[in-house]
């Protein structure tokens, strides 16, 4: 059933996650710690923290997503699962999109909850909370899919995490800019819709093109 292949891979991610919960909670702890570091490193003054809060939350999100994508395909690559996917009759981009979406669904719920809590700690006004949630919902899939391209490209090589970080971070800049300025606008009572529209456009672009790039990158890694 080729149409269902997307959901099968998605379900597989959930099964794996339920067997080792800790691995999928680590990025969220990491997120909290990064947010914690900013007030400690800067100053505890509420005004300063409040102005830079959207930036802090989004930089931390970005790092947490990077962290969770570390060695995304490595295990599947080593036990031959990716090879099976390539030889299966279903389209490889769809299968891989299923895998990445599954991972996103697992991570997004705790991330949303914890960032709502932390945004209150950082002094963001409650009115901006919905914008923060929407920006996270729109932005994190982009980060996941773009990051998966770099993870796929580095799968065939020996040096993994530092290298893929170098490849990914420049590509994350637009998401960081649009998302944090959306939250910033909402916090100061302005309209955040232009930024959110831009994020949605980026999301559509990423969802259509990234799976193709991920699958061809994985094939190169396999031919190594």
């Amino acid at each position, binding site marked *: 059933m080729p149409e269902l292949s997307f959901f099968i891979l998605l379900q597989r991610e959930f099964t794996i996650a339920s067997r080792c919960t800790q691995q999928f909670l680590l990025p969220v702890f990491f997120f909290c710690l990064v947010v914690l570091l900013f007030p400690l490193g800067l100053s505890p003054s509420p005004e300063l923290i409040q102005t830079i809060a959207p930036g802090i939350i989004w930089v931390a999100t970005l790092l947490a997503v990077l962290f969770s994508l570390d060695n995304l395909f490595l295990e599947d690559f080593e036990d031959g699962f990716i090879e099976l996917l390539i030889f299966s009759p279903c389209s490889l981009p769809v299968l891989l999109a299923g895998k990445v979406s599954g991972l996103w669904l697992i991570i997004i719920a705790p991330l949303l909850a914890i960032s709502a809590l932390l945004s209150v700690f950082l002094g963001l006004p409650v009115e901006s909370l919905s914008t923060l949630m929407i920006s996270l919902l729109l932005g994190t899939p982009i980060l996941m899919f773009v990051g998966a391209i770099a993870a796929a490209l580095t799968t065939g*090589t*020996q*040096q993994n995490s530092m290298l893929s970080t*170098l490849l990914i971070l420049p*590509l994350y800049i*637009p998401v960081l*800019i649009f998302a944090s300025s959306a939250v910033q606008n909402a916090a100061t009572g302005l309209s955040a819709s232009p930024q959110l529209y831009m994020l949605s456009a980026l999301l559509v672009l990423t969802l259509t093109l990234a799976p193709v790039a991920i699958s*061809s990158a994985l094939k190169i890694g396999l031919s190594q």
Partner: protein
Amino acid sequence: MILVNWLNKIASPQRFYLFCGKWTPWLSLLFFILLSLGLYGGLVTAPADYQQGDAFRIIYVHVPAAWMSLFIYIVMATNAVVAIIWRIKVAEVSIICCAHIGAYFTFLALVTGSLWGKPMWGTWWTWDARLTSELVLLFLYLGIIALYNAYEDKRSASRAIAILTLVGVINIPIIHYSVVWWNTLHQGATVSKFDKPSIDTRMLIPLLEMGVAFSVYFFISLFQRARNEILQREFNSQWVKELVKEKSNA
């Protein structure tokens, strides 16, 4: 049709190697003529800027270098498309050669820019949209080089960086405009206050000459690097062995 035939011919590594060897001396000659014209025009005949004095003359290195940093990425992306679709070896070789040259030009543009910025704006660096996106471009180039070096097999490495280059080429306009927007939203005009004065013809012509000279230099450098890389990759093939024999006899 003639063009297609010619392209088919030139796509063989051996022919490309000979083609590059044949054209390098002519291109070098052209480069030196253009460079001397541009430098003479820029450093001697162009009048001093009414506001910046003689310090503006760094424009003759800075602006062509910045042009090249983008132009090379476009050349690289074109090669990447060719490498992915037709798997032509010469295009695969060119991508990594372009990446190295592009990184140098981007670095040059950043360094000359900050040398120019210090006396004019009073700061080495400002978080201006153009500066920031140039810095991001440098990191894109460095990422491509790092990914290439991480692979052992050169052909897989070339195909991997071809994909990364294409991802980058889609992203560059997005990054650029998002950075422009970020800057105008947050910081107000710090740099656009120095609105570019409409440039004098005596200043403009040397600038264009330098621009062409830099692109000719890029092709010279690309040809040399490509020849080198082709020899390394094809060291097992018959024509390279014959070439080596010929050279060692001579």
